């Protein structure tokens, strides 16, 4: 009896050690990939053509979904908030509420989640397919660094395009809110836009534009990491794609809290 308990304890200890080692290795590999993706910017060769191509795929390709979701979210936000604001006689602040909440918080997170769903999965599946068919090894064998050729262009273009997409999503949401305000809440359009515009201070815009930088980095490095480490044929690629989507989205939402707290600590006026 005691012998079997010892054996079970030994197996459990061995399993836990294996899991811990695997996870530490994954964190190490991800950190190295993320660091290398940024360090590559400062060394040649630089792949400007690949970066522009990725910017087109990530930025232009994500434009319709980002505009559409931003528009309807802004409209819903205006509609929901109108009820509460009317109770306090503050219906005229609808524009302010939509613009502030979208620019500071919802715009960056929403755009980040949309791009994570579309691009992190795209990166994981594309690079994963290349990995399992030995195309990544072939690239290394041809003397080209896959980290420079494949990862850095994706990371740089995602960071830049996420900032642009966030601004577009903010504008689309305010436009959606304005349509609700004018046609459903019977508010004056000029009043909506002037309160929405005037309520925005430089601090709000700084916070709204700093977040996409970090989110873009998180989304692209996670997508590339799962792609570059995919194993096990087509099933492995599918698994990598799902993991990339889940990890990127969860990490993005968690990091949002810490970034907000950090920004508020460093810049109390924000």
């Amino acid at each position, binding site marked *: 009896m005691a012998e079997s308990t010892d054996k079970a304890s030994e197996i459990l200890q061995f399993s836990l050690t294996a899991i811990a080692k695997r996870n530490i290795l994954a964190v190490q590999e991800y950190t190295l990939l993320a660091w290398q993706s940024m360090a590559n910017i400062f060394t040649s*060769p630089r792949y400007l053509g690949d970066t522009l191509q990725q910017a087109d795929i990530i930025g232009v390709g994500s434009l319709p979904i980002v505009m559409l979701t931003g528009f309807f979210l802004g409209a819903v936000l205006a509609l929901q908030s109108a009820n509460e604001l009317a109770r306090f006689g503050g219906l005229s602040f609808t524009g302010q509420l939509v613009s502030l909440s979208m620019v500071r918080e919802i715009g960056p997170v929403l755009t980040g989640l949309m791009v994570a769903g579309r691009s992190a999965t795209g990166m994981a599946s594309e690079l994963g397919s290349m990995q399992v068919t030995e*195309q990544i090894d072939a690239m290394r*064998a041809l003397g080209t660094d896959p980290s420079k050729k494949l990862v850095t262009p994706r990371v740089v273009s995602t960071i830049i395009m996420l900032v642009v997409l966030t601004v577009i999503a903010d504008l689309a949401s305010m436009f959606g809110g304005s349509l609700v305000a004018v046609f459903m809440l019977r508010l004056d359009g000029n009043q909506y836009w002037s309160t929405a515009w005037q309520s925005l201070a430089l601090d709000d815009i700084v916070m709204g534009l700093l977040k996409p930088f970090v989110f873009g980095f998180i989304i692209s490095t996670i997508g590339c990491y799962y792609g570059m480490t995919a194993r096990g044929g087509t099933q492995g690629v599918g698994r990598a794609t799902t993991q990339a989507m889940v990890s990127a989205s969860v990490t993005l939402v968690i990091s949002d809290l810490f970034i907000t707290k950090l920004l508020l600590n460093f810049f109390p006026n924000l």
Partner: protein
Amino acid sequence: MDASLPTQDPVIIFEDVSIAFDENKVLDRLSFTLWHGQTKALFGVAGTGKTLVLKLAMGLIKPDSGRIIVLGQEVSSMREHDLFALRRRIGMIFQESALFDSLNVDDNVSFRMREEHVAPEECERRVREALHFVELEHTMNLYPSELSGGMRRRVAIARAIVNNPELLLYDSPTAGLDPMTSTTIVELLVKQRDVNKTSALLVTHRLQDAFTMATHRFIPAQNKMVEVPRGSDWDSKTSFLILKDGQKLFEGSAAEIATSDDPYIREYLTP
């Protein structure tokens, strides 16, 4: 001395190379040398580490212990960044070709040259030359998905030889192909060996491919390979290496393997 015969300059040296994955020891103190101008054919049952030998030689994987010296540089201790320059002197043909499926044949073959910003005219000339070598000039604008398995292997060979490498690593270039296409591929390997004098490490499951390489020469004037009579230098350029349980079981010429008394080798040679 015939300049085409192997010389005593080592191209690849494996010294007591070992590597294990988890508890599974795949290579156990493996040592061998590939000489300049020589083709060494690697045999062994599935999972014995043949492909691993090629990846180790290319520096794609690091050994747990031992030294690997390729073209005078110790790849087993080099950093990834430093390996890229060395890899440009080596051509590798992967088992499943590993062509970039988003690029057409032209872009696949010229990939390295485009990375080095070679002039477009020079690039096109060399791509046509390499594709002419594998008799696939007409496929320049096709994508890998539009090619047959044999054509993909030939494009992979063109991609590997376009920069005139000093060493070629072939990973089962005839696996899964019909006999006619396999013969075409083997003829290309013989042509590359005899015309361009490139040293090579060949992983294959097909003994007849290696024996064909040992017993044939490419005659450029006739643009085909012909069998050379036994007794001349028919097996001087090709040697055989058989792996078993991660260790070297046999290393020698075609004549030596054909007359070996080792029961495992006899069984291996039996069709």
